[in-house]
């Protein structure tokens, strides 16, 4: 192999999206490190504590994996939407409504359904998320209101609906915190590993990412979505209905986000609590972008976000650096990734 060939090969490798994403994350860690220095602390010690906090023991890893599951599910939905040129900002509200619907089903169905209450609650969560997304899609398509605005407004409404339920009919009396009573054991999401807190959500999430990958790249529906995202004109000439792909994509996002909300209440809290999913949907958008809108890449991106968060919480307890550092790293890496890929993500 000639030197020129090696050099060009290396250049091609440097040109890959994966490399640019990794570089962006590294840069965000460098800039954040400077901030930590300005705060009078050692960035290496801080990062060491984040890593220890995330992976230091089996229970910590479990917390991270459980956290990653809803991020992954919602992130896959957002990635598909963005690929189809649907700027869906509504995962946040869809997760909240999914969690609410699953909780209602788990509380009401516990006596009547017996062991069937768990699948019923999961289905309710999926339907709750999908219904919320469908309303947004309907307003967007019927009245031409930009999807970003519809979904953003509906996030606020979803939070308030959850609050209304918790302070009203579903709230636990004398709990001192807005939450429902605990679900019956039968409604709990099964554990993946016995005697740990690790629930099967992470498996569901990885499966969802794989299925989304196959649908996107190996089916006619996926091709239609990609076409709709790549070029309005081409899609139109090919007879692909914009309305159909918008509605379909929003529904998929609603289903996945609703599932994310359901597994969070059924697998982690065993009850609905106020703010149980605060920020999940916005994280999902960041994760989808970090994954350059590739469903399979959402898996590592979601794990990165989840472990970063669990690690930072532990860092705050250990050495007193505020865990809001995570938001800085997330925001910076997102901006750097966006700059590094420009408008390329959707085309490739």
């Amino acid at each position, binding site marked *: 192999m000639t030197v020129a060939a090696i050099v060009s090969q290396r250049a091609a490798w440097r040109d890959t999206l994966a490399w640019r994403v990794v570089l962006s994350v590294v840069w965000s860690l460098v800039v954040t490190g400077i*901030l*930590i220095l*300005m*705060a*009078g*602390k050692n960035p290496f010690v801080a990062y060491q504590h984040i890593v220890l906090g995330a992976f230091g023991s089996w229970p910590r890893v479990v917390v991270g994996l459980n956290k990653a599951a809803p991020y992954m599910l919602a992130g896959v939905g957002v990635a598909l939407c963005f690929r189809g040129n649907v*700027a869906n*900002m509504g995962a946040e509200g869809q997760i909240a409504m999914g969690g609410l619907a699953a909780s209602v089903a788990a509380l009401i169905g516990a006596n009547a359904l017996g062991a069937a209450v768990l699948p019923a609650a999961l289905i309710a969560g999926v339907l709750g998320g999908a219904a919320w997304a469908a309303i947004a899609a309907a*307003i967007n398509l*019927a*009245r*031409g*209101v*930009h999807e*970003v*605005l*519809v979904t*953003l*407004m*509906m996030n*606020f*409404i979803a939070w*308030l*609906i959850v*609050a*209304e339920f918790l*302070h*009203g009919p579903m709230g636990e009396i004398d709990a001192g915190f807005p939450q429902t009573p605990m679900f019956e054991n039968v409604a709990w999401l099964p554990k993946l590993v016995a005697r740990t807190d690790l629930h099967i959500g992470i498996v569901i999430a990885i499966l969802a990412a794989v299925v989304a990958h196959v649908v996107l790249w190996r089916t006619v529906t996926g091709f239609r979505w990609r076409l709709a995202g790549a070029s309005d004109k081409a899609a139109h000439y090919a007879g692909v209905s914009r309305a159909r792909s918008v509605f379909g994509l929003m529904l998929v996002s609603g289903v996945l986000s609703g599932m994310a909300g359901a597994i969070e209440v059924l697998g982690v809290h065993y009850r609905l609590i106020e703010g149980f999913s605060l920020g999940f949907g*916005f994280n999902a*958008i*960041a994760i989808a*972008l970090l994954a350059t809108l590739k469903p399979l890449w959402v898996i590592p991106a979601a794990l990165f976000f989840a472990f970063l968060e669990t690690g930072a919480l532990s860092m705050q307890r250990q050495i*007193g*650096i*505020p865990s*809001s*550092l*995570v*938001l*800085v*790293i*997330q*925001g*910076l890496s*997102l*901006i750097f990734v*966006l*700059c*590094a890929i*420009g*408008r390329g993500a959707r085309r490739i």
Partner: protein
Amino acid sequence: MDAVFMIDFLGATVRIATPILMAAMGGILIERSGTFAVGLEGMMLSGAFCGVVGAFLSGSIVGGLLAAGLGGLLFGLIIAIATTKFDTEHMVTGLAANLLALGLTSFVLRTVVGGGKAPVIHIPLLQPVAVPILADIPVVGALLFRQPPLTYLAFVGVIAISIFLRRTRGGLLLAASGENPLAVFAAGTDPIHVRFAALLAGGAIAGLAGAVLSLQQIGTFTDGMTGGRGYMALAAVIVGRWLPLGTLAGCIMFGATEAMQLRAQAFNLPVSSYVIQMVPYLAALLVLAGLGRTARLPSAIGQPFRRD
């Protein structure tokens, strides 16, 4: 419902509408120039933070206001560099900037400013200034002409931006950059520069909107204190069809619904406070849906400009 209650209610409406209005004016400049202004929330938050820190460190309210403008401008600059130099998607860039602002303000407050934990900073509030003569008009005088300075600035800003967009060369260039950037380029101005400048100016104005909250209404900074007002401002811009006066109407509507929610008990409404809190968002959705496709975006918004 007596007059005292009405005056109190209208006063609260103006108070709540002011920060949203100020941010929305920045939003109009940004959106009309062709960039989606999702980052208003982050610019506001940064402005609120820098305002408090600036006033605290300089010991003067002018220093605080200057810092607030710069804090908003900084996030305008970040978004401008990303969207114009790197062609990033506007919505997500704005969202990322909001995330960054939330983290950065909270982190810097605790570490650099507070030395480990959140410091307690109390800034004396900007006090109402009475306009001579006008302030003595019954009812209206107290309501409109006995306000703190930034409130006047926000309302005067509506008129100023209205005139700027319609009557000045700069304003026409700005609007043209959002509608037909190629025409602007043909006329000898780079639309990219116009968008860049609009983001800086809009950012500074949104930063002052943050100062309305932190220096004029609350007197300190708390994490995420803007609480979605940037998004409300964005909605107001669209409800107002990207026109200053229409946007003012949208902001007053949002202010009134929130003021009503705070006084829900007095109105004897048969619903809970959470349902009433939904009203501004439902109202925004309804107005947007009612306007339908007539609420036309600036035609080149969100599109990168390329010379070829």
